[in-house]
């Protein structure tokens, strides 16, 4: 017995010695620092890998590790709740940002000079969505929702890009008459109802929607009626199995020319091109109303860069954020990801998104309405029921009730 104890003790001691050695090595070797970049852009991992390699070359003493798990918001929330916070956090400018900002997870960057070059509209979006005066992260990438269309099919049928809602419907009607599918809906994944609904709601909910919301008046029931009806109308121009296929199936089917249009955000473009590099794509602003001059393109902050307040290496983390914001690197990111930059002066020159450019230049942009709906409401679920049950009133009452309920639980 005694012998075993001695052996065990000796073993434990030698292990701790080893650990001691390891620690010593790490700290003596020119302050090698490891920081973690957690983000929600799984599509962008390759690009970020390249940027990290470049950064590490410039800064040999900093090692950046990127993490981008599926269900990023859930993973991040779980990690925050157990105080295991990544050094740099990249999420969307949505409720996740708002919750994290209100929980005091980020370092305040309101007066930071990295914000100076950012489009003020996007900075304002972060303030609006969190309801705070301070800004806790730098908007880096913006996305947009339009109608993705197959240029070859449009040319074949001799259709022009529609500018108004009525034209939009008549285009869909023409495609249908030609025996083709106008829209490839992917309702099995509930969230894929959101891009179209966002575009419709943002243009029809009324300008004072958010100011009323800040006063505590939830107006989903009355203001979302038009959007819900229009979404339902679009669901009529789908395909037979539209309730049974998901986002990935949709990207593949659309890239194979199975439908003329696809109601998704521009984040789907790289995926579609990956499946069929020869496809000729275009994106036009979502013609949500009959007044083309008033139509705003939905564009939100797709990726923010926030440094955690609890980071052990804030200097290095900040350095990496500044590196990403450098013009050359920001340009590389948006080029490879078909996204728009939140930084002033960096433009997206890809011909695919030419039709959206005018809206970006004019500044007729507006944020995603669902960024303002608390996550507990899960509007995508109710929307999924709407396109299946086709009952607008049921949808409106349910959404209103869910929203009020969640508000009441806080």
């Amino acid at each position, binding site marked *: 017995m005694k012998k075993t104890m001695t052996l065990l003790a000796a073993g434990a001691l030698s292990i701790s010695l080893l650990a001691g050695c390891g620690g010593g090595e790490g700290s003596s070797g020119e302050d090698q620092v490891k920081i973690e970049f957690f983000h929600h852009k799984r599509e962008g991992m390759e690009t970020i890998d390249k940027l990290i390699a470049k950064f590490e070359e410039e800064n040999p003493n900093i090692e950046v590790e990127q993490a981008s798990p599926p269900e990023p918001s859930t993973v991040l929330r*779980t990690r925050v709740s157990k105080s295991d916070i990544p050094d740099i956090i990249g999420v969307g400018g949505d409720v996740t940002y708002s*919750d994290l900002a209100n929980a005091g*997870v980020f370092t305040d960057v309101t007066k930071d000079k990295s914000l100076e070059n950012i489009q003020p509209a996007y900075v304002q979006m972060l303030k609006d969505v969190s309801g705070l005066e301070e800004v806790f992260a730098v908007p880096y990438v913006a996305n947009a929702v339009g109608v993705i269309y197959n240029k070859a099919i449009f040319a074949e049928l001799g259709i022009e890009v529609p500018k108004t809602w009525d034209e939009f419907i008549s285009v869909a009607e023409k495609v249908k008459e030609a025996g083709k599918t106008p829209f490839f809906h992917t309702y*099995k994944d509930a969230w894929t109802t959101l891009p179209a609904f966002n575009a419709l709601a943002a243009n029809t909910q009324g300008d004072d929607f958010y100011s009323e919301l800040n006063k505590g008046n939830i107006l989903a029931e009355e203001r979302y009626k038009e959007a819900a009806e229009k979404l339902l109308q679009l669901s009529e121009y789908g395909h037979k199995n539209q*309730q049974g296929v998901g986002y990935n199936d949709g990207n593949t089917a659309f890239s194979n020319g199975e439908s003329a249009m696809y109601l998704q955000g521009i984040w789907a473009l790289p995926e579609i091109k990956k499946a069929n590099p020869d496809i000729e794509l275009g994106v036009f602003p979502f013609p949500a109303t009959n007044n083309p001059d008033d139509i705003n393109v939905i564009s939100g902050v797709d990726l923010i860069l926030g440094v955690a307040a609890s980071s052990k290496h804030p200097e290095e983390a900040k350095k990496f954020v500044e590196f990403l914001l450098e013009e050359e690197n920001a340009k590389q990111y948006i080029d490879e990801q078909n996204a728009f930059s939140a930084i002033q002066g960096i433009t997206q020159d890809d011909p695919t998104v030419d039709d959206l450019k005018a809206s970006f230049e004019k500044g007729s942009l507006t944020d995603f309405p669902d960024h303002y709906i608390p996550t*507990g409401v899960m509007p995508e*679920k109710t929307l999924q*029921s709407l396109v299946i*049950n086709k009952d607008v009133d049921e949808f409106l009452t349910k959404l209103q009730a869910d929203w009020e309920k969640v508000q009441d*639980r806080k």
Partner: protein
Amino acid sequence: MKKDNVAVNNPHTSSTKSEMKTKRKISSRTIAFYMMVLPAFILFATFHTFPALQGIYYSFTNWNGISLDYDFVGFKNYINLFKDTVVKDSYIFTFKFAVMASILVNIFSLLIAVGLNAKIKGRNFFRAIYFLPNVLSVLIVGFIFNFFFTNILPDVGEKYNIEFLTTNILGNADLAWIGILLVFIWQACAFNIILYLSGLQTVPTELYEASSLDGANTWQQFWKITFPIIAPFFTINMVLSMKNSLMVFDHIVAMTGGGPGYETTSISLLIYNGGFSGGEFAYQSANAVIYFILIFVISVFQLKILQKREMDM
């Protein structure tokens, strides 16, 4: 074990030297037993009991899962739970699913077990085949069936003009739960078959011989001999499959994500989604407490009823 207890309970009787010796020997043995239980006890307490108690504590707050501060709200979460239609629907779905699943799983696994217990060719091969689903990861099985329902079945339906197969049933509000049920039963049967098989091997063959002399047919043999003797196995299988199907989660995550709408949102999926991504940690903790009480009550109830039946037989 009984001997130990006697010795421990009556320490005063041990007066002679030899008895003293036995006592010391026994108590050191008891300590050894306690030591064996200790690691499991510590692990269970740290990773199970303690978090469960924490959950109960949070269910009385309004914590959203990440903020630094929270307030106590008393029973507000519990009151809101009873007003929430989403919660109500998820309970209805889960119970509908669990009742159907545990009945069907037991019927099928008993049938298959009886077949696999008979003297048939390639018995071990079939036993292995039927056990296979149990060692596969639920998520992977779910994703495979998801692909099957989404891509393969509609093609088959298209080819042979079977109308109802041409659309994915997982996207159908009324039928999605049946798709999940099928996969659940397929996978859950494997384990129950094993339990039933071991039960069937406890039935003495003499009974069958005697009954066949009395002119009983196979059907009578099954109901009068086999089924009563394997009653304890029936009990444990019913309880286990009820509990497992009440906690259905992975299958749904892999196949429908709770949709369409909330049609296939089980209670555990709702707790997970609402609690972690929905920012309602405290509210869903309250839901989890109710859910725990329900499963506990149902399991006790099932055990009581079914064990009584065992005695009657």
